[in-house]
């Protein structure tokens, strides 16, 4: 077990800068998720922690030891790859025992450790199979088993669920989280799926374009996104963002007046008015929006509508009977209004 400290880390491939100075600290036993769109540098950062890419500048420390120049095998980490990287010519048992056999561990140790990992992951019946004979979820478990056998200080996961179908992904998500709760090993998990990040993480690191946008607990990020990017990235369906101007203590989007909590925004300021779909409510005194699409999911109804020419989405607990083309009246929940500067994109 160990904490991981990343400070001022940069990465260049030739003249292209991939990471522009990243600072992240992951506490001992924490489950940290690096999330961001493709090409944001999250996988590169993970590979740098693993030692598979060298560090252009800055410092990475695992358990207080700077590992910039430490070989991957000396870092005491285990990694689960996106394609699992199981050795196709070895059985499940041999795959899991590979690191031990390289370290010339006695047979009793190998049996014990492989047996324990197989027990944790429910792989006991599959130990003599080859990777080709396994399903996607089973391969995923073997890859985790290979990591567990090594008792590492840190687990690294590189988009481990992206090759699985939707149902299995939800199941494995639960299994990985459960595994972490049992083993309490520091874990760094990379994904582009914000739902995975929200459901699994103790701490989420949102990245974009080689920079950290925000670090925080899942619900903190959801409730108080630091900027427009995080606001749009976290949450599904995404937060509604309406361009407006602050006048007389309210936000005007075109002619439509949206209320603001007291003290938010300066007079005449150009802002982006953010409100999550579930924070609209049906209110006869609210603003008018023209319904474009109604999607009942059973537990709630998602309504796509047009408000002052801007497309918005609302999610309502009530059954909405409006038909496309009709007008509904909605009002934002004042306690959940987010206001961002239109110039900087930062939260006000």
């Amino acid at each position, binding site marked *: 077990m160990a904490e991981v400290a990343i400070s001022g880390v940069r990465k260049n491939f030739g003249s292209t800068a991939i990471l522009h100075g990243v600072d992240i600290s992951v506490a001992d036993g924490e489950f940290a998720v690096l999330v961001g769109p493709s090409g944001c540098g999250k996988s590169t950062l993970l590979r740098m922690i693993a030692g598979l890419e060298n560090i252009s500048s800055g410092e990475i420390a695992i358990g207080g030891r700077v590992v910039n120049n430490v070989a991957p095998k000396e870092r005491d*980490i285990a990694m689960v790859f996106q394609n699992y990287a199981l050795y196709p010519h070895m059985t499940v048992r041999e795959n899991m025992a590979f690191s031990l056999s390289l370290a010339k561990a006695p047979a009793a140790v190998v049996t014990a450790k492989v047996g324990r990992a197989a027990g944790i992951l429910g792989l006991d019946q599959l130990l003599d199979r080859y990777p080709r004979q396994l399903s996607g979820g089973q391969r995923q478990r073997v890859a985790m088993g290979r990591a567990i056998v090594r008792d590492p200080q840190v687990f690294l996961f590189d988009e481990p669920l992206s090759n699985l179908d939707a149902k299995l992904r939800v199941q494995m998500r639960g299994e990985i989280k459960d595994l972490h709760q049992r083993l309490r090993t520091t874990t760094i998990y990379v994904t582009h799926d914000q739902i995975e990040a929200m459901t699994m993480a103790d701490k989420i690191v949102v990245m974009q374009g080689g920079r950290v946008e925000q670090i925080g607990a899942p619900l903190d990020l959801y409730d108080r996104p630091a900027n427009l990017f995080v606001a749009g990235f976290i949450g599904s369906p995404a937060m509604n963002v309406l361009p407006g101007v602050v006048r007389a203590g309210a936000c005007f989007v075109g002619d439509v007046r949206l209320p603001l909590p007291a003290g938010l925004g300066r007079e005449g300021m150009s802002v982006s008015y953010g409100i999550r779909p579930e924070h609209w409510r049906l209110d006869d005194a609210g603003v008018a929006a023209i319904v474009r699409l109604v999607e009942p999911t059973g537990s709630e109804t998602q309504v796509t509508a047009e408000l002052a020419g801007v497309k918005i989405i609302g999610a309502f607990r009530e059954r909405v009977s409006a038909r496309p083309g009709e007008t509904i009246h909605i009002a934002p929940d004042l306690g959940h209004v987010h206001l961002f500067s239109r110039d900087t994109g930062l939260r006000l």
Partner: protein
Amino acid sequence: MDHTQALAWTPPRVQPSWLARLLDWKPALVAICLAPALGLLLVFLTYPLGLGIYMSFTDTQLGKPGIWVGLENFEYLLTDRVFLNAVWFTIFYTAAATIGKFALGLWLALLLNQHIPFKSLIRAIILLPWITPTVLSAIAFWWIYDPQFSIISYVVVDVLHLRSKYFDFIGSPWPARWSLIAANVWRGIPFVAISLLAGLQTISPSLYEAAMLDGATSWQRFRRITAPLLMPILAVVLTFSVLFTFADFQLVYAITRGGPINSTHLMATLAFQRGIPGAALGEGAAIAVAMIPFLVVATLFSYFAIGNRKWQQGGSDE
């Protein structure tokens, strides 16, 4: 046609022609597709092979149809020192050249699998020995091995002064044998190197990364990851290489013609020598037929001994 009519247009039903209907009928399609290949195989492979096997049991001579003599040709060959020598040298030639080709070819493939500048150019250059017609490269080697004009002798004796006498490459049996093996290795390396390189590139880099994290040194990565994963393609390449080398004719015939004193005859060159210039078609055919069991054994060995792996069975990769 106005706009509404245009939108409501549906394609008319067309009765397919007799040809289209014939090609849609599976047995006919199978027959049509197989006919050219089957015809070529029958005319250029089955017929000559059958004729060769038949002739090996006759005493056919050039210009004189023979009579059936049963196993007489083979009985004679078993007592013929030149033939036995050719069998021995063919096996030795195949073994030595294959070992050389695979050692150097694998080494080259591993080098080319690294990130090096001008990789594709180097790859193209490496293929040169293979795409040169064999007879051309054989003639080049004939010059390289010439007792008087050899460039190797010139460099070693006249330029570097390391030796006082020119090399005698193909004038006496053992140097001639090794010289031929060297020429064959040179010619065979590209095929092995490019095939193995293709095999190496199918191995996912993440396997090496995983092994690196598991603590494997570069030698362990080669021995425990690369080598076993390369085995299936190695088996195929090895089979082909052994077959081509065992049946080699051009290099030897162009450089030494089996000499000196029949010491470098391969079974193929001896078969030709006896059958065409020597006019003993039956005996030449018998020598050629005698190669078949060796080829079958070599193929079966490399196919079953190293080709088929349990881990390749069942399921898919993804």
